[in-house]
């Protein structure tokens, strides 16, 4: 997929996007031998999208589709191979590490694993103050006050200040992780499978909290998850990834009511039914996801697509606008534009 003017895709069509990713590529080299050239795992292969202010953009896809790599690349936790990421009209991929620190304060991340993302040797108070100390925010006293405020914001209390991470349950730890991200008053929070490790009843509590916080702090979320139900619930717009490519972008409603890309259609039809009496029609995908080391020519999905045509094997489909906010990269919709 190549970059395209994606401005009109957003709900607030006139507004400038807060974050604009254009043609992001993340290729990891694989050494094959001394005399052979390196092969590349094309984890993210040319992804473009916009994130508007106050919006939640959901990224869905199956394991290995590159959604987490994309999230990490945007925050430069892994240096990108190619592409640009504009935050407030500045390409943050071109800034030096020192200068990027300034932006990182406004671009935060919450990870999936509530157990490994908190230092077991630090008390919760110190964990939450550390980020502020690094960025030189406030005096020691002000930081402590702010941490206690934050603990209350995420539904914990000041008595948890001196506790260690092991004293908390998974749901509580994700609350601490959220508080840590919030401590720097970010604008964008990348949530990488934030609720996936939690039990259903706890997951609901954290999702409600995340929605409340987004409003209160005027945040934008990039919400990465494999769980379509969760993504549909929390997102304004959703991007579907397959094998390093963004194959479809639409508002949450459009995507589930009228999915356009054959992969999205298959993904939605594979969801377990919510009522045992209803018979569900399934689109069965055959075969396995191809290796990102050697992605298929043409459309990345043609090896499993029930509608594959000749052109799909040869030409990479460009993202096309189906309607105002709905875009897909598929040759089936060629004539309609």
């Amino acid at each position, binding site marked *: 997929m190549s970059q395209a003017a994606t401005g009109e895709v957003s709900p607030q069509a006139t507004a400038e996007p807060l974050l604009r990713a254009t043609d992001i590529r993340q290729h990891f080299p694989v050494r094959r031998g001394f005399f052979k050239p390196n092969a590349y795992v094309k984890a993210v292969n040319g992804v473009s999208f916009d994130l508007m202010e106050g919006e939640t953009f959901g990224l869905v896809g199956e394991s290995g589709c590159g959604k987490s790599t994309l999230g990490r690349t945007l925050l430069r936790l892994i240096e990108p191979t190619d592409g640009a990421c504009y935050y407030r009209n500045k390409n943050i991929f071109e800034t030096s590490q020192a200068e990027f620190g300034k932006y990182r304060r406004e671009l935060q991340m919450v990870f999936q694993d509530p157990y490994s993302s908190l230092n077991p040797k630090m008390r919760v108070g110190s964990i939450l103050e550390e980020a502020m100390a690094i960025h030189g925010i406030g005096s020691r006293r002000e930081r402590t006050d702010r941490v206690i405020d934050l603990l209350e914001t995420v539904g914990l209390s000041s008595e948890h200040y001196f506790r260690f991470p092991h004293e908390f349950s998974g749901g509580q730890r994700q609350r601490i992780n959220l508080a840590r991200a919030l401590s720097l008053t970010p604008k964008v929070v990348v949530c990488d499978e934030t609720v996936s490790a939690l*039990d*259903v*009843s706890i997951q*609901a509590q954290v*999702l409600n909290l995340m929605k409340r916080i987004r409003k209160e702090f005027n945040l934008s979320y990039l919400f990465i998850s494999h769980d379509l*139900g969760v993504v*549909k619930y929390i997102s304004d717009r959703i991007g579907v990834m397959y094998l390093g490519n963004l194959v479809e972008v639409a508002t949450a409603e459009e995507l589930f009511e009228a999915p356009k890309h054959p992969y999205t259609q298959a993904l*939605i039809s594979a969801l*377990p039914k919510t009522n045992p009496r209803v018979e569900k029609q399934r689109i069965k995908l055959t075969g*396995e996801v191809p290796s990102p080391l050697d992605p298929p020519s043409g459309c990345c999905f043609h090896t499993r697509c029930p509608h594959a045509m000749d052109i799909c094997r040869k030409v990479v489909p460009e993202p096309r606008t189906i309607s105002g906010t709905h875009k897909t990269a598929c040759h089936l919709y060629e004539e309609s534009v």
Partner: protein
Amino acid sequence: MSESHVIDVRNLRTHFHTEKGRVTAVDDVSFHVDRNEVLGVVGESGCGKSVTSEAIMQLLNPDITDFEGEIIFDGENLLALGEDKLARIRGKDISMIFQDTTSSLNPLYTVGDQIIEALQAHGRYSRKAAAETALKVVTSTGIPSPDKRLKEYPHELSGGMRQRIMIAMALVCEPKLLIADEPTTALDVTTQAQILDLIIQMKSDLDMGVIFITHDMGVVAEICDRVAVMYLGQVIEDSTVESLFEAPLHPYTKGLMQAMPTIESDPKADLHTIKGKVPSLTDVPEGCRFAARCPFRTGKCVSNAPTLEVATGGHKVRCWHWKAIAEGTAPEAGTEAVIA
């Protein structure tokens, strides 16, 4: 026990001896599974669903576990059988598949060898005959180019293919009962749909009973005939899947169903939450175990433990107030906010 019951679990209690004292992880659990039937066991982490299945397979360390009750399989009480007899049942008459396929397969042997091993452990098979049977079973799981796959090592296969191999290995001796412990939790939705179809098809082909352990209500709706909902070591609701989804009776089941965001949930409304968190097994409440988190609790709930009573035909529930709740006449007590 009627003829059609494959297994009958009666008043099973499982106690562990821990540093914090005796912990009862499974408390008075009874259920049965018929031939050609899938029983779903649902609940959140720590509710005892996996311990129940490990008790049936007798996989728990006998030095630190005590059992009470009976597990009747084939007319014999599994809890009273000796290790040599159990070894003949495990993997032959009762098989199990797990969530984590990577650690369930031996990385040093080809998957073909591992399936052949299961066959030869339970019957007189020449290597050649066993290899033929293995190929037949693996082919029936729908793996592409099965003869090639049998010669491969587990790391060469994807998660979905490994789960198919696990299923082939579990079913190669044509068991009467299959215990599936979250077999699709680690898989993607498209692969999950394929594996669920496979389990349903194998169930009717072999006319076997299946105990399907999961935390996902969607998967329950998809595959199960009957469901037992567990909470803190007890079955709190037991019903046919249709009846459960039409009208869940226990407040916990209701909460669990509403808390799960599906593509039908209203994104503008807050998700329904169950207040607080599951109490620790070392500190089990005296009355109803769900009382502290229940919006309908009364004084009776806090002091007296309800029993599993029959509500309507085939639908059992462990709640004092299920009738009033179903009729909508139960007063909703204001639960103080408890933080999870």
